């Protein structure tokens, strides 16, 4: 439902009536074919919201070319006709479909639903009124969102980085961080927006790729690259890409002379006033809750935090103050893409829990037309060539490629698309298949890894077997790597298309197989994440087995006292344990570990072994790995030898016990990043900055006469945690910045501990006399993570944590179907984020468990019984244990052996086919005929 706004939510959880106001589109969605003729004729131009005002759109427009739905709309404020009846009407004249309806009116819908999920997102901070950065005054000062549009192939400059004022190529660009964040004076937003540091680095790196020789400087207060693999990316940006990082707050932006250049002045780390001139200044604008969402929250009676985000609990991060209404995405606090996707799934889990009794009452399955049998027809191949904006067309001569493709045997149709993956292109491909009677399709675009499922679905929609499509990767394997040699890239594109055409000629229709699902879940790890995931699945009625290695549930949360927002962790964990232990659908296996696993999505069989050697076998349809993480034991700062040098976890215990050293101590020194963000462990443990700040606040509040120092590299109190950092400074906690090459030196001198550190502000070494030194220790992956990794064939990342299927879009899925990850096992994170991830993993698992069967890929190994002689070479190399050796004739060993393939376990990887010396096994879709035809085509140039 587009152009719709919710104005009221009445009723209660399970039974809401939502009032939705639908604005007039003035275009009939049923008639509009998205051809764009109207836009071409429309005489009125206004700023494009999609391009963040960097480009123009017409009064009749689509938001962007790949928009879903691809239906035009008229902006009534801009439209000449709607402003003055009787004038213009150019679009109506040109629209052959007769879709224009100037008489369209606003509609009010009342819809009954069981639950509501609020995901209204964010708006970026508007720096116009703040004055100091020159935004709105100097045209070459732009926001980070506008910069994204300048970098984009579909943006106003088609990806060429030029200045808005004079279209001069940009040679030097500055990024100013924290515009609209961490600053209550200029913008009123005291919180950290969490995502802008990383996005500025990404933009700087990509801009340098777009414009070789570009100089980029990022001016920042703290680099908050606390996500998975973010610190490595920052180091690469610094070392490899040559992005310059400057720690300072820029005083202001001024115009330099008569030209459009911009002058920045700032005080550098040596305390000197510096001026630098730039072509362009990018303001890394923060995120805030949009005004319409604030209004909705007010109307729906949803409580907000002081920072205007939905108020939630750390143990129920998607539950709003009103039962049955859930909040996710940046509405519940600033989030990056993966956290947003995770929270979207988490909200789904919460809804699913609430509405489980009504599951399948109102839903219907997607249906496809009957498949056309093309086995007897000769090949009629259609080839679709994608420009991918300028990604392909900027390098490859697509025109020439098209002309060449039309000459290939059996090719009866060739068409070019700006983006072959867009919804309008899909509809167009379906039409072409039908009108041209195409029975084989080649899409020359990007990687089948990301896009083949989409095109397969398109074929299904057109009534063709989904395996009759072949992709030629002329982007990732061609235009991206041969940007410097367009001629060779075009020639290679021809080779790739010729190969794909040859191969698809001998493709067969394949059937995907269906296997029944065991509607039970297995959760490995009984910490917060594991318990939350288990409970959510169980509450929805699924039987869950929860495996815990130790004799106690609770995991790392047992070491914690308060969450960042002040919730009492022991109370919440005790409640969770109680619920889990007494839940009739949860079986807890304490002091058990998974020691063997077999099976596949929907049909896993895991063997648990107890401490006494006792074994249990669990059948389950999905599995969640929530095995947590370990504490780093410090080797540095004389931790081993000085008793009053303790870890943060030890300190919490001592503090709680009011231990004598803590009670008597007057000087406390916290040292951050112990075991984090350095060689071999180039990642941020994410929680330690907030943790130390909270401890420091506690110490200061209890006794303001204590001296509390925090030695840090970058203070990473991200999101709304920034309020704690501010509070600590207000209470007199002293923050001292140190660099990796100048780590503090800790020595014992009688009763005091000497801590020496280089002070960047005073420019001299500082000697602190401490009574206690607290080390903010790193979170390390479980030392036995590799065991589980091997058992379930789920990968570990370079830093030893479990690796999700896609960093942004599949943040809790594994590449192995049916297995999911949550909590510290994935990466260091706060309780709130662990809970969100656990709910998300449960939601993803339930998409499987709620079904009785699952459909698997039709590309699998098939045994050629004539050729197979049972040599069993393939049995050993199969990574999925899908092949077994059996008697050719049951119970007759003399008749010889042959192999059997479990179709459901087989992933179609093809190792068996490669290892077979007798052509006794082949992979459907990758037969010898297909591959040799393709190779012959490759060599035919």
């Amino acid at each position, binding site marked *: *439902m*587009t*152009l*719709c706004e*919710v104005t009221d939510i009445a009723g209660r959880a*399970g*039974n*809401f009536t939502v009032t939705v106001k639908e604005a007039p589109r003035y275009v009939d969605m049923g008639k509009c074919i998205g051809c764009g003729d109207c836009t071409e004729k429309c005489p009125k131009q206004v700023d494009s919201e*999609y391009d*963040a005002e960097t480009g123009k759109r017409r009064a009749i427009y*689509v938001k*962007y070319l790949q*928009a*879903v739905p691809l*239906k035009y709309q008229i902006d009534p404020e801009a439209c000449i006709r709607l402003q003055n009846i009787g004038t213009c009407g150019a679009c109506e004249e040109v629209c052959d479909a007769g879709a224009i309806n100037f008489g369209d009116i606003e509609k009010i819908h009342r*819809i*009954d*639903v*069981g*639950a*509501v*999920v*609020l*995901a*209204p*997102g964010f708006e970026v901070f508007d720096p116009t009124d703040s004055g100091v950065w020159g935004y709105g005054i100097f045209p070459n000062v732009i926001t980070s*969102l506008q910069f*994204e549009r300048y970098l*984009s192939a579909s*943006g106003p400059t088609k990806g060429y980085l030029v200045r808005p004022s004079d279209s001069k190529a940009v040679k030097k660009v500055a990024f100013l961080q924290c515009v609209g964040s961490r600053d209550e004076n200029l913008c009123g937003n005291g919180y950290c927006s969490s995502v802008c540091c*990383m996005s500025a680095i*990404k933009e700087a790196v*990509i801009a340098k790729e777009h414009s070789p020789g570009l100089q980029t400087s990022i001016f920042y207060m703290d680099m908050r690259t606390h996500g998975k693999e973010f610190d490595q*990316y920052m180091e690469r940006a610094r070392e490899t890409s040559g992005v310059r990082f400057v720690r300072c707050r820029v005083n202001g932006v001024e115009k330099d002379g008569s030209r459009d250049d911009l002058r920045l002045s700032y005080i550098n780390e040596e305390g000197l006033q510096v001026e630098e001139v730039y072509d362009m200044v990018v303001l890394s604008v923060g995120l805030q809750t949009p005004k319409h969402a604030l209004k*909705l929250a007010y109307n729906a009676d949803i409580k907000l935090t002081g920072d205007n985000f939905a108020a939630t609990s750390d143990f129920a991060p998607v539950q709003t103050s009103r039962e049955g209404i859930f909040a996710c*995405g*940046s*509405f519940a606090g600033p989030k990056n*893409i993966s956290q*947003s*996707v995770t*929270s*979207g*799934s988490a909200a*789904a*889990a919460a*809804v*699913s829990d609430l*509405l489980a009794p*009504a599951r399948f009452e*109102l*839903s219907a399955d997607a249906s496809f037309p009957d498949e056309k049998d093309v086995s007897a027809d000769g090949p009629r191949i259609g080839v679709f060539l994608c420009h991918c*904006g300028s*990604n392909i067309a900027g390098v490859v001569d697509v025109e020439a490629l098209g002309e060449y493709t039309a000459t290939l045997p059996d090719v009866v149709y060739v068409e070019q698309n700006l983006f072959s*993956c867009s919804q309008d292109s899909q509809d167009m491909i379906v039409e072409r298949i039908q009108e041209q009677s195409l029975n084989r399709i080649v899409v020359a675009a990007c990687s089948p890894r990301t896009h083949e499922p989409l095109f397969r679905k398109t074929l299904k929609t057109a009534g063709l077997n989904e395996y009759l499509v072949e992709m030629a990767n002329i982007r990732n394997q061609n235009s991206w790597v041969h940007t410097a040699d367009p001629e060779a890239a075009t020639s290679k594109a021809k080779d790739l298309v010729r190969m794909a055409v040859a191969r698809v000629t001998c493709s067969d229709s394949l059937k995907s197989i269906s296997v029944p699902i065991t509607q039970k879940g297995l959760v490995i790890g009984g910490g917060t994440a594991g318990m939350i995931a288990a409970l959510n699945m169980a509450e929805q009625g699924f039987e869950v087995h929860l495996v815990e290695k130790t004799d106690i549930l609770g995991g790392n949360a047992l070491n914690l006292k308060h969450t960042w927002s002040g919730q009492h962790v022991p109370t919440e964990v005790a409640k969770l344990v109680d619920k889990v232990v007494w839940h009739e659908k949860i079986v807890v296996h304490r002091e058990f570990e998974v020691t063997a696993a077999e099976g596949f999505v929907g049909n896993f069989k895991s063997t648990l072994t107890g401490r006494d050697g006792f074994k249990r076998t669990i059948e389950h349809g999905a599995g969640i790995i929530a095995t947590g993480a370990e504490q780093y034991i410090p080797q540095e700062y004389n931790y081993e030898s000085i008793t009053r040098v303790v870890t943060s976890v030890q300190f919490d215990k001592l503090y709680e016990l009011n231990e004598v050293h803590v009670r008597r101590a007057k000087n406390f020194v916290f040292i951050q990043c112990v075991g984090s963000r350095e060689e071999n462990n180039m990642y941020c443990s994410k929680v330690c900055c907030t943790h130390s700040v909270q401890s420091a606040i506690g110490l200061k509040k209890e006794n303001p006469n204590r001296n509390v120092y925090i030695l840090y590299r970058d203070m990473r109190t991200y999101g709304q945690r920034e309020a704690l950092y501010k509070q600590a400074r207000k209470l007199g906690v002293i923050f001292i910045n140190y660099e990796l090459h100048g780590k503090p030196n800790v020595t014992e001198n009688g009763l005091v501990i000497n801590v020496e550190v280089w002070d960047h502000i005073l420019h001299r070494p500082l000697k602190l006399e401490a009574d206690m030194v607290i080390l903010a220790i790193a979170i390390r992956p479980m030392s036995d993570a590799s065991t589980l990794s091997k058992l379930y064939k789920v990968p570990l990342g370079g830093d030893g944590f479990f690796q999700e299927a896609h*960093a*942004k879009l599949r943040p809790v899925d594994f590449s192995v179907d049916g297995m999911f990850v949550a909590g510290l096992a994935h990466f260091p994170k706060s309780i709130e984020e662990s809970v969100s991830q656990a709910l998300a993993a449960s*939601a993803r698992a*339930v998409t499987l468990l*709620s079904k009785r069967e699952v459909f698997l890929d039709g590309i699998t190994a098939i045994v050629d019984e004539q050729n197979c002689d049972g040599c069993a070479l393939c049995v050993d190399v199969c990574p999925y244990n899908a092949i077994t050796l059996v008697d050719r004739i049951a119970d007759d060993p003399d008749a010889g052996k042959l192999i059997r393939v479990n179709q459901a376990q087989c992933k179609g990887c093809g190792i068996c086919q490669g290892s077979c010396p007798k052509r006794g096994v082949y992979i459907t879709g990758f037969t010898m005929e297909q591959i040799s035809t393709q190779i012959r085509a490759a060599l035919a140039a």
Partner: protein
Amino acid sequence: MLITKKIGSVMIVGGGVTGIQAALDLADSGFFVYLVEKSGAIGGAMSQLDKIFPTNDCSM
């Protein structure tokens, strides 16, 4: 207490990447979903980005 039957449908307000993910998961788990979007098309802020860390995928 009045016990009324729960309705097996859900409304998601916001058609950005978060709302889309919630909609997909709920539809895949047997619920009818209304996805409500204020503008003319879904996709949200992510559709405005050029490329995405760490794969440099186009945001589309």
